[in-house]
Each structure stands twice: as C-alpha cells, then as structure tokens.
C-alpha cells in the first residue's frame, strides 16, 4: 500500500522479522523490536506475520495514504488520529487516499506498529483474546527472565545477589542496538580478558563501568564484553516497550520453560 511520510519522525523505520544468514560476515539481523505487537498488527489485517511494517517512535512521522486500504496499529499508545479524529488501537481501520495519520502523545509504551493492506481483511473473533494476552505480556510488570551465560560464573557472589534481588532501571541510553541499564555495580571475580564471540538479541553484557547493557535487534554480531546471560525471547518485547526510568527485576529461567512459553505464545499467533 502506498504511503507518504510528509513529516519525518524521530526514529521511524520499516522493519521485518529480521534478516538472518550473514552474521558470520558481520551483518546485523535487525527486525521488529517488539515482535509481539508487529505480528499482532499483521494478524489483525490477515497479513503474513512477518510482513514488513512501520516501527514508530515518538515523536512520530506524519503519514499520508496515497491509496485506499486498511491499517492496524498496535504496541505503544501514541494516541493515533486519522484526519484529526481519534482511532483505536488493535482494530481494522479503513483509510482513503489522502487521509492523514498522526500520533499525538506518548501515553503508554515506547514503540508503535503500523501494518497495512489493500485487501479487506476478514473479521476474526479469536484476535480479541490474543490482543488481551499480548497487552498483558507487554505492559504488566514482571521480572525479566534470563538464562545464565558463559561469564555468569565469573561474577562475584555479591554481584550475583545484586542481579537476582536488586532493582535496575532503563536509561536514556536505549536504542535499537541495546538498552543500557543503571543499577548496582557488577563485578567479575578476576579481571580476565574475554575473546569476542557471537552474541544474540537479549544478551546481557557487562560494560567496563560495571553496568549492564541488553542487546536488542540491531546489535553487533560478536561482542567481547563478559556475556552474563540472555533474556528469554518472550520477555524481550516487554523490554522493548519500556520507556526510560522503568524499573526492572531479573529472575533466573531455564531452557525448557523458555521454549515452552515461546511456543505457547507463537501457537496463538498461528492458530
């Protein structure tokens, strides 16, 4: 569907589910930061779940539609208005050529998604339950669950206790590459030098200043900071939606639980 950006927002981009296959030559994967909301917007319109769509930060772009079609907006609530009239999130919205879409105010969350299609989507009732479920996963406070990484055992006891029991906060140093946190200073037992190795979305790296950064969609392919662990995939969209100065607690998770949860949620998208 043709759309024109008539005023550019601060950090809007077209995103898909990520471009894998070239990390061995240093090419970052990218892709949806909050893949729950992105998939949801596509599902509401009957699009393939991984279809490319707009990822929108606030202040958002102003969009003008150049043909008739249907849109759905999910994720953060930036108070979307179509021709200056308020429109709801999570619904199929019919738009006409020349219509103007704007976002007025960041009410909740950090990233909004705009999916589009030319074809009239079928109304499905099953979406309601999924919408509620995703809303709960994104915006109900809950610990960030992680699986300990290669450098976890190099931490001193008080650092392990701090990560497991003390609060951390998101900061302004947060972007598509990573979210830098602020919290108790974390230390390894010995000052060992680590060799760079492959990292993933969700990797918790220990920076030289004792703070933790969590790698997000546009992270570099290899990293040499101590790899403390990985936030599980189902908790990353919640992190992606956190504005700065949001409190985070961490909790341990195991592999089978992480896989079970991921598959349980993905099954609802594909059913």
């Amino acid at each position, binding site marked *: 569907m043709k759309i024109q950006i008539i005023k550019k927002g601060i950090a809007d981009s077209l995103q898909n589910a990520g471009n894998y296959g070239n990390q061995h*030559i240093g090419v970052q994967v990218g892709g949806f930061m909050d893949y729950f909301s992105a998939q949801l917007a596509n599902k509401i319109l009957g699009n393939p779940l991984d279809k490319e769509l707009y990822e929108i930060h606030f202040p958002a772009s102003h969009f003008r539609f150049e043909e008739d079609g249907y849109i759905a907006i999910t994720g953060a609530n930036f108070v979307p208005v179509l021709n200056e009239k308020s429109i709801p999130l999570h619904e199929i919205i019919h738009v006409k050529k020349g219509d103007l879409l704007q976002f007025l105010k960041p009410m909740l969350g950090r990233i909004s998604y705009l999916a589009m299609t030319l074809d009239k989507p079928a109304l499905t009732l099953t979406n309601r339950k999924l919408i509620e479920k995703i809303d709960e996963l994104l915006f109900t406070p809950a610990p960030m669950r992680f699986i300990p990484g290669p450098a976890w055992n190099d931490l001193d006891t008080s650092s392990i206790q701090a990560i497991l029991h003390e609060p951390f906060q998101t900061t302004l140093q947060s972007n598509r590459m990573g979210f830098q946190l602020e919290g108790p200073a974390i230390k390894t037992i010995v000052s060992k030098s680590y060799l760079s190795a492959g990292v993933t979305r969700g990797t918790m790296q220990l920076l030289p200043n004792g703070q933790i950064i969590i790698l997000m969609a546009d992270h570099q392919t290899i990293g040499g900071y101590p790899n403390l662990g990985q936030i599980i995939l189902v908790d990353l969209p919640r992190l992606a939606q956190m504005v700065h100065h949001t409190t985070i607690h961490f909790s341990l998770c195991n592999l089978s639980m992480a896989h079970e949860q991921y598959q349980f949620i993905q099954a609802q998208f594909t059913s």
Partner: protein
Amino acid sequence: MLKINKNESQSWHFKAMGDHSLFFYLDERMDENINTEVHHFSAFIRTKNISAFKDIIPSYHAVTIVYAIDQLYAYLDSSKKYLSLLHLAESFIEEYEIFKQQHTSFQYEPNNIEIPVCYHPLFGIDLVKIAAEKNKDVEEIIQIHCSKIYRVFCLGFKPGFAYMGEVDKSIQSPRHPKPRPFVDAGSVGIAGSQTGIYPSDSPGGWQIIGRTPLTVFDPIHLALLNPGDLVRFRAITKEEFDAIKNIPS
C-alpha cells in the same frame, strides 16, 4: 594418562546460550590452531544444512549457532535422531570427532586473498607516528606488515569487518585511547596483534597505516573477506591506488 597426544585446548564444549542459540567453544585464547579448529567445526555444521539454524557465527575460539525455536523442534521431530536440543549439540561434537578421525582433509579450505594497500601518508595517518615509536623507517613498517600471511579469525563490529592476525610483534600498536569520530572506508589499521580494514566510513580506534582501493563490503556482493580466509597485503603506489579506484566494476 595415555592420551599424551590429546590437545585439551582442542576438545569442544558447549552451552545453551539463552533460548535461541548454542555456544560451542574451545580454550579461550587467540591462537591460530584453535581458530583453524573453529573453521573446521563451523564448516562441518554448515554441511548439515539444517534450516532451523539461522546463523552459524565463528569467532576466535567459538562457534555460535542461532536457531529458530519452532523450526528446531520440527527438525528434532522429523530427524528422529536427536532426543533434544542438548542431545543434538552433544552429538554434533561426537560426530565431528569421528569425522575428524576418518578424514585427513576437512571441508574448510581457506581462500588466499591478496589485498593491495597504499601506505601513502595521506592514507596511513598513523604510520609516521608508529615508525617513530618503533624506531624504524616507514618503509620497514610497511615491509613487515606485507611480509606475513594473516588469518581472518572472524568478522564483526560492522558488516565485512575482518579481524586478522597476527601482526608481527615489532609493529604491534595499541588502539587509540579515544576512537576517531571518522575513519575512511578502506582504511587499514592495526590494534595490538590484529590488523583489519574498515569496510565503510565509521568511527574507529585502530592505528591507521594505509588504505585499500578495493570495496570490502557491499550489500550485493557482500564481504570481500570470509571467516578463515588467508590474507596478504601488497604495497601499491598512490597512482596504482587511483587507477584501481577508477576502473568501473
């Protein structure tokens, strides 16, 4: 006690790294033998052609496999060979060890690549300083940099950025304490025992000694250098540099 020839640094271990990657690793050292083993193992996994594996990322001493969870379980179900993800990882190591015993040559065949570099002071902005620090002529630094065959340990930092080693001790030079905000694409640098080429204009902290006229990365042809490649630098004049730059590709 009997395994006197067994080099402990070359036996593979693995960890599940988070919920969508597997981390296979050797002894954590920057070492050509260890890294050769990394490329053999990485090639071995690649030949398995498992579509659930989205990326296979070799690094100095490790191979990280990034997988799609749903596709991985579908593969485990259909293969009937592996009971679980962890069983699959263990089996890979065993299968690889058996493969190694049965074959004298491996799948991994490094490419030999020659890279022309112009060491003109216009490009090699740190060359004079390094020469002074090392008490050598600029010519000598260039000759030493060109005299070795470097191995591409791995790529990272930016698309196409190859970490190569090892630079001769006599010209090793640490990173600038504060990175430059701008380094030109094609710049050849040294950082400690490693050498590398900036594929695109970017900030960078390496000591810059020259520039190649070759395109190191573009989105269509991808990377000039691949993990495991063997690289030799050849000194060219400013005129040759300009000539290569001007040839339409």
